[in-house]
């Protein structure tokens, strides 16, 4: 159960190798935290995760292998997690791929959508179902500004995030009144392992900035959080800019 400072007692991280996802878990941790479940494709080592996430010794760290493309298995996955740790206070959907080169190959592009969008929808619905039954809990979805308006340089990725984003805000509307919530997070360029070596875009930030914005957004019961916050207004304008202006901005 979450307390009045919005500190969770349980956290589920879908996408254990995400720097942003990990930063969120570390930021949300407090003496309240009882258990963390990490879902990633290759399993993972609980002891190593405990140290990488900077969690106290009394926090139960559970690894539950998670495959974003195993859509049929997502409900059962959620049930297994509930079986082990009880109610889910905060779930972070942080898995995803950049899909460099997806634009050059239909099969790669489809595979990217399968992970980033279909996987997000399938796991998101399974989680939303559980949170709705609990009557409380928050699903934190790591979307991206790349989905707000797509650019030539990463349009397949952008498209996959656009799908995830629309689903996530829609799920939030669907869960309204049940006590369960969804927080859609739209970061700009984040300096992380996933973007290592790429040229930074303007208004970039670190995973810890995203984590702080998420904690703040949870406390204020926000539905959407942009990181950095100014991007809300930047894209408020840019979304409506004529196409030739938008394309000029793409590097």
């Amino acid at each position, binding site marked *: *159960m979450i307390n*009045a400072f919005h500190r969770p007692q349980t956290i589920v991280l879908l996408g254990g190798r995400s720097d942003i996802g990990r930063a969120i878990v570390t930021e949300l941790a407090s003496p309240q935290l009882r258990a963390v479940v990490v879902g990633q494709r290759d399993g993972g080592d609980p002891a190593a995760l405990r140290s990488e996430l900077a969690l106290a010794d009394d926090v139960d760290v559970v690894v539950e292998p998670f495959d974003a493309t195993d859509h049929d298995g997502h409900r059962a996955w959620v049930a297994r997690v509930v079986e082990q740790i009880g109610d889910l206070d905060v779930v972070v959907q942080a898995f995803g791929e950049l899909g460099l080169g997806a634009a050059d190959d239909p099969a790669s592009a489809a595979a990217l959508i399968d992970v980033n969008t279909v996987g997000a929808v399938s796991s998101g619905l399974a989680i939303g179902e559980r949170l709705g*039954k609990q*009557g409380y809990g928050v699903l934190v979805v790591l979307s991206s500004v790349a989905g707000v308006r797509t650019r030539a340089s990463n349009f397949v990725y952008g498209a996959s995030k656009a799908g995830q984003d629309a689903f996530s805000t829609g799920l939030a509307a669907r869960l309204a009144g049940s006590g369960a919530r969804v927080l859609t997070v739209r970061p700009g360029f984040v300096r992380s392992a996933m973007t290592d070596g790429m040229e930074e875009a303007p208004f970039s930030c670190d995973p810890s900035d995203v984590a702080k914005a998420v904690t703040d957004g949870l406390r204020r019961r926000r539905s959407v959080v942009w990181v950095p916050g100014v991007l809300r207004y930047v894209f408020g304008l840019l979304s409506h800019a004529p196409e030739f202006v938008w394309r000029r901005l793409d590097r």
Partner: protein
Amino acid sequence: MPTVAESLVADSSDALALAGERGVIARGLGRAYGDAAQNAGGTVVQLPGGRVGVRVDQARGVATAQAGVSLDEVLRVVVPKGWFVPVTPGTRFVTVGGAVAADIHGKNHHVDGTFGAHVESLALRLADGSLRTITPHADPGSDDHDLWIATVGGMGLTGVIEAVTFRLIPIETSRCEVLTERVPDLDRLIERIIATESSRYSVAWIDLLATGTSLGRAVLTTGDHATKDRLAELSPQAMTDPLAFAPRTLPDVPPGLPNLLNRFAVRAFNEVWYRKAPTHAITAESITGFFHPLDMIGSWNRAYGPAGFLQYQFVVPDGATDALRTVIERVTASGNASFLAVLKRFGAEGDCLLSFPKSGWTLTLDLPTGAAGIEALLRSLDELVLDAGGRHYLAKDAIANPATIAAGYPKLDRWREIRHRFDPDRRWQSDLGRRLDLIS
């Protein structure tokens, strides 16, 4: 998707029958400051109130009320008949059932103990659907005695209280004779509270923004129910209807406000309020004026804005006045505007396993939830309170973790065992029970 749905049931055993795996909790008027009467994903049952649910045995000075009846409704029935409730908190809008489940205290704890100490019997719905009458007089070690000490103060987690029979205090008038004093600092305040401890009712309001030599400056009010003779001297016009009780409420604070209670507003308010209090004066006050000042303004919580506020209340033992001083220093130094800080003396602990009061000092703070640094401040106060041998009040709590509660309530394991014995299938559940790991 499940949403909140309401249905009407004949009694709480029907609620039990309808309930699913997330169980049932009874809810009174929802005056607990945290999640005591909430049950996410589960069932919340409310019992009916109304003055018709109150019966008074005029000869013995005992009242029986349905659990959903509020203390406001009880007072409207009993005051004109020359009685008062044995214990009232700072609002009269709590139910009789809630008063027992939280084992509430008032300004007279050092003399009269908790509400539970005045209860003669109660009707309790158990997890198996049966209705059982329990009293404080059962043999120690018996099932009934175990149920008693687990239910009074048990936050509704042993069953639904359906009716309560409790003793009343005889009064000659509906006014109180009150001594109001301005006290310049904490040491002086503690002296004066001890010096006036023969007064039945005593409470101090501390200005938490006063620093340095004024740290802990306060307005102390002590008093008792006014006798007819004293009322005739203090307020002759009140003698036309000495047992009148007709409280008014001012309009509600409107919704949608931002937080009005920032540091500057609170500092200004505290200054005026402190200066306005007499240095030393005796007056006759109405029940609402003396016991329930916050009831005079509706929805006052809205003045804290959308992030709302939380209340932090703890007790530290008699010898721990240093810890008290340190708490006040830390809160003051943090710059967090606490509009309301109340200090009371507590008398001896009762028998009930999760009952909050024990001999010593209890301080209550209202703090805006969204203010910077509040979480770290309260975590540091938690440590301080526990180290001094103190504990926190479940009816106010919205932030504690299980370890903080276990440390403060050494009888918790025994309580859990009794609870489990009478509710092995976890039919009674609440968000508080889940958060604080009370339901095994």
